[in-house]
């Protein structure tokens, strides 16, 4: 392997080292995520002014938008880990990809439910066959397909590789979801937040939204750490380091 990849990154790929690393990282990530989430909820639900048109109903965006962005980010993480798993057959990458899928599916589901709850009073309907909504629904099905394929195999590593391949095929949907509001002019509103240039939202509403996005990202990392840890224990249950851990002595 080339020299520019630092040694600690190689070491992190080994299950026992990652297990300890994730164990140290997880409480910090979780605390920070909960703290930022509480601040953002206070800012969004109490401090931010009501919308002049939608009243208080708009406040659901503080849940809806961060979850929607995470549904795509998690797919990206899953696809990247799948790529690593397929090319270099790294066991840890397989675990990360497969443990991302249920978290991503949950974020996608929350996005659809909160959007639907908001849509009833605002659009007058729970559901409409709009490009953004439909592509988000397809994203949920893709997550479920990956999870289903993973569990269909007897051999878990083989299942992880097959599901990783499916995740890579499904990545064509991610840009479709992201750009759907620009490509098709349908009911769902266009992008409000921009990386380049000013966002089309009042600063009093913007900072809780951005804080909440940071909180969901940290929460995803914390949740991923926890899931990967328990899955590693399960996958490596025959190995020495797990046996030492289970017998109560200090791990390697």
């Amino acid at each position, binding site marked *: 392997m080339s020299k520019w990849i630092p040694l600690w990154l190689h070491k992190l790929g080994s299950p026992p080292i990652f297990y300890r690393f994730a164990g140290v990282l997880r409480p910090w990530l979780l605390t920070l995520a909960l703290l930022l989430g509480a601040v953002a909820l206070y800012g969004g639900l109490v401090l931010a002014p009501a919308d002049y048109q939608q009243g208080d109903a708009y406040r659901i965006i503080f849940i809806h938008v961060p979850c929607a962005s995470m549904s795509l980010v998690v797919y990206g993480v899953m696809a990247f880990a799948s790529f690593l798993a*397929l090319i270099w057959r790294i066991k840890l990458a397989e675990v990360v990809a497969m443990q991302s899928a249920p978290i991503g599916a949950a974020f996608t589901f929350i996005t659809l439910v909160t959007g639907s709850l908001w849509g009833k009073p605002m659009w007058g309907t729970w559901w409409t066959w709009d490009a953004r909504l*439909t592509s988000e629904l*397809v994203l949920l*099905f*893709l997550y*479920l*397909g990956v999870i*289903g*394929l993973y569990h*269909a*195999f*007897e*051999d878990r590593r*083989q299942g992880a*590789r*097959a599901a990783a*391949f*499916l995740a890579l*095929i*499904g990545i064509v*949907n991610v840009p479709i979801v992201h750009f759907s509001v620009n490509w098709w002019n349908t009911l769902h509103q266009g992008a409000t937040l921009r990386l380049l240039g000013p966002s089309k939202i009042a600063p009093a509403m913007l900072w809780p939204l951005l804080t909440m996005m940071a909180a969901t990202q940290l929460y995803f990392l914390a949740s991923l750490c926890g899931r990967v840890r328990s899955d590693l224990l399960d996958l490596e249950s025959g190995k020495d380091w797990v046996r030492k851990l289970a017998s109560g002595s200090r791990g390697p």
Partner: protein
Amino acid sequence: MSAPSLAQACAALLRRDLTLAWRRRGDIAMPVLYALIVTTLFPFALGPESALLQRIASGVVLVTVLLAMLLALDALFRSDIEDGSLEQLVLAPQPLALMLAMKILAHWLATALPLIVVAPLLAGMLHLPAAVMPVLLYSLLLATPLLSLLGAVLVALTAGTRRSGMLLALMLLPLCVPVVIFAAGAVAAAQQGLPWLAPIAWLAAALVLLLVLAPLACAAALRIALDA
């Protein structure tokens, strides 16, 4: 013994698969009968009002054909896995992707072509205007190979599993949403007297892309699914 040339190998595989399909003619008839029965159910469920049936005809025919193909896809590699000939194919000196492309072609000829042949009958049962019929056939001619190619990749992924029927539907249906949108869009546009060439061109472009990529992806998926 010298290895046969690439063209000979392709022809041999195609001939073998078509012969196998012909020996089991009953299996070829099944998807057609399925599509016929599903289409018959719609007038019973929605009422025989011809204006309504006319409006939904193209969509019903497309979805019915899609479901019939989905049911048949499961059998694409099954008998070859059972008798071990798929492993021989993987070991063969010829490129696996090309061999799989031949298998997909044979499968398309055996399952999709009969469905396309009866599609005008199905559409006629739902009172689709005769003027729109050619557009429906064009879109089916482009959409069914797309579904075969997409489906083959996913079937290859599930090759190592025991229960794959419902799983295949769960994986395939999200991926074929664009195919259904463009195929149905072309027919709907033709029905309203609008230009319908653009969606057909999109389908054709997607078909060209998948003709190149899908056999390669199918070969990679099969290698993943078979190495136990």
